[in-house]
């Protein structure tokens, strides 16, 4: 994924089946009556075919186990040429699989991926061994990784009552307890045409994709879309939690995540753009930013970073991560952040600051005059939305977002994020730095 996409997914697990993925992505859009299909054409010598299934599984880690087995069943265990790259991933909403190749190989790529709809036929012994591979994956991602451990615990608290509260990877006990029968059942329930979205990007046209789907007899939807609504989020009652990760050798840092409900809903894409712009403002050393009070005018945090993103049209999350200055406790950094954010919220973002950062923000979008740049951006955007089970906006609507940004909405978001909600704080490092 691109850096932008990674930032948007920050705080969530996106677990890939292969540790060292190769992801050179290139990237319009059509949706047929028989299939959910998006096509993003570009000048490219490669084509990427992605299939995404919503899973909405409450069982920690099970969807990820299914992903491993389905990929092995369909792609991984089969011979393919060196120019064909593939990987698979799981996030809190969906599992995804992709395969790349030359544009004239599109039929074959889709034929291979259509195997995802077939029942799992991995030998039972191999399926059992794959649990051990996932344990190695757990070790790679979680052992001696306090940030990853904190991220899971914080998500479980912040998202309580929602599917996305459960761990994508699972605990070692969860992983050891996976059964092949459970995996097959979840696969059969989720890897269905009604639940699949195909995204094809690269050197192919909509017509070529449509023809290829017919050629390979790509499975068609058999029933109405039971799960086509984008995921919604329900905020549990406001509460705070403090998680401590005393690590003698770890660099001292505080991570604060806060989820709050907006007074009224804002279209998802517009909300996301405002959230990103607000984070950009808060990261500056301008009036209304945090860098002056925390880093330059006062020696509280030697470094910090603020990110913000929507969970749905009504809920927004903010994450603050900071390293304390010499002699400053993590508790003091946390308090300084909350106090400063409250002060900025009371006064609002000054107009001069808003305009300066807005001018910089135009780089968030591609150069729409540059077809190649725009196609790549739209490919990333489309995949990102589909991976979160959301419909990407058409190009014309994306282009209009920039004109819909407003100073008033930024201040509304700021007031929301500085107000009530659920807050999870993690202290990581030598425990004498905590208080």
């Amino acid at each position: 994924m691109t850096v932008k996409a990674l930032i948007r997914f920050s705080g969530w697990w996106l677990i890939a089946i292969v540790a060292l993925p190769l992801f050179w992505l290139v990237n319009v859009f059509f949706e047929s009556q028989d299939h959910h299909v998006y096509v993003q054409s570009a000048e490219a010598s490669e084509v990427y075919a992605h299939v995404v299934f919503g899973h909405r599984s409450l069982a920690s880690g099970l969807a990820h186990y299914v992903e491993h087995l389905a990929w092995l069943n369909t792609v991984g265990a089969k011979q393919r040429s060196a120019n064909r790259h593939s990987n698979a991933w799981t996030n809190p909403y969906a599992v995804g699989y992709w395969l790349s190749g030359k544009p004239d190989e599109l039929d074959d790529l889709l034929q291979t991926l259509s195997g995802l709809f077939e029942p799992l036929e991995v030998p039972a012994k191999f399926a059992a061994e794959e649990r051990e591979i996932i344990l190695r994956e757990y070790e790679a991602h979680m052992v001696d990784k306090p940030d990853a451990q904190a991220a899971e615990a914080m998500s479980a608290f912040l998202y309580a009552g929602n599917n996305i509260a459960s761990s994508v990877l699972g605990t070692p006990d969860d992983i050891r307890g996976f059964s092949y029968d459970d995996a097959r059942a979840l696969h059969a329930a989720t890897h269905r045409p009604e639940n699949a979205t195909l995204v094809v990007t690269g050197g192919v046209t909509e017509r070529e994709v449509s023809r290829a789907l017919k050629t390979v007899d790509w499975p068609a939807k058999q029933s109405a879309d039971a799960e086509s609504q984008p995921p919604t989020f329900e905020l549990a009652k406001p509460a705070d939690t403090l998680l401590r990760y005393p690590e003698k050798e770890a660099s001292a840092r505080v991570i604060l995540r806060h989820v709050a409900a907006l007074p009224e809903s804002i279209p998802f894409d517009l909300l996301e753009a405002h959230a990103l712009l607000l984070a950009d403002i808060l990261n500056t050393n301008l009036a209304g930013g945090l860098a002056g009070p925390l880093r330059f005018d006062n020696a509280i945090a030697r470094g910090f970073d603020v990110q913000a993103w929507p969970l749905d049209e009504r809920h927004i999350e903010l994450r603050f991560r900071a390293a304390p200055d010499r002699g400053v406790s993590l508790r003091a950094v946390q308090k300084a952040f909350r106090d400063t954010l409250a002060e900025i919220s009371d006064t609002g973002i000054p107009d001069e600051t808003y305009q300066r950062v807005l001018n910089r923000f135009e780089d968030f979008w591609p150069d729409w005059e540059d077809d190649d740049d725009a196609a790549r951006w739209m490919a990333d955007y489309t995949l990102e939305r589909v991976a979160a089970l959301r419909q990407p906006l058409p190009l014309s609507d994306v282009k209009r977002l920039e004109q819909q940004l407003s100073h008033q909405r930024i201040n509304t978001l700021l007031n929301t994020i500085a107000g009530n909600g659920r807050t999870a704080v993690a202290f990581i490092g030598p425990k004498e730095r905590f208080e």
Partner: protein
Amino acid sequence: MIRLIPLTAMVISLAACSAEETNGSTPSASNEVSPEGIEFTLLAMPDSDDVAVQAAWPTDWAYRENTNPAAALVGAEMILAGGAEGYPEGEAAEQLADLNTEGGLYGSANDHIVGELVFERDDINEVVEIANAHLRAPLLGQSWLDRISDGITQGVREERAQPGAAGFEAIRWAVFGEHPLRNALSLYDLNPLDELTRDDITAWHAETFTRSPEAVAVAGDIDARSAGEALDTLLAGLPEQGREVKRNVSPDFTPRRILLHMPQAEVSTLAFIAPLPPTRDGGEVEDLLLTHALGSDDQSVLFDAVRTQLRASYGFGAGVNNYTREHRILFMAGEVDTNQMAEAEAVVREAYANFRQNGLEGDLADHKAPLASHFSEVADRVMVQANSALESALDEHPVERSLKQELEAVTEASLNERLDTAFPSADEFIVIAVSPDADALPEACVIITPREAAGC
């Protein structure tokens, strides 16, 4: 710091060069001299709104006994964050953000400090003035020294608690012993950070940033005179080079098998390293194709051997890295099941030996395709092109070099020759295992601290 880096990162640094086609126009490379005598490579990239500048200042700071190796890392961050004459701390970053400018300073293979800037052509005068102030007269205040060294100290302390990092440190002890370069590569020994003074930083700054970078590259839609004048402004007021750079180090790559026993480790790691010829000698494109096939994705030789067949690891990869520009290494590494460590070592060795003997499997054109695609993709990116030109200049390759043509020229024969003459044989690797089980690698030299690897 030597860490495992994915192939994708290496591909990005190995970009297409002068003869690439960009949007139908052909950039040209030329050697130029500024009005004040600064020699530079100009990559004319028509239709590009951005300009990139890269400069590499030679240094042997890391090679000397009487220098503090932490000064370079801390100093580079201080220049960027701590303000400069006329630019109080925290202000220049906002000005540069308004100008949509990005810049940085980083160490390149411990032989050079590389400064880079990318900005919109119309802002060139303002950008080079800000950059010049930070190169010429950074404030280098004590409070920023404390701040930055605190952060680096904590980061190193956290990293060295990781088994994989401890393993690579043991290899550095085996290869470099007591040579100062060893600690400069990682700062694993924290004493230099504890002892670092502002005088160390100012001494490093004064001898490093001169009017005589070893190589300078400018890429963008800019003529030679404008580029030269900008470079003169960028380097104005900097001193002439005051000392001869001498980089003397004799690494010992004698094959050894070492087990670093870490009873508290929750995972086991296994790594192989061996030397490769420097990039100056050519063969980079072959190396990229070969290391990709050896250990980059699920179709790689090592993935198949260690994960798919042996079922001992989530992922086992390979790559190339530089200790110095002269001393490059090939590495193969990954976390493995502690109970399968010995078997994994044998499987990796056998898989590598077969690979070295038999070369790439499948159609060569299929192996080349992703790299060719990447070269085309980055052909209009000024920063990538400037970096490619800079690296080529440092390696004394001709200015008209084209990686695209080098890729086209690769044959199965040239790859096999590369494997035979440049890649180490399977028994020429230093093997390091880090494990909670002292017996995980039978007959290995067992140590309990990285330092002891020097005696293995």
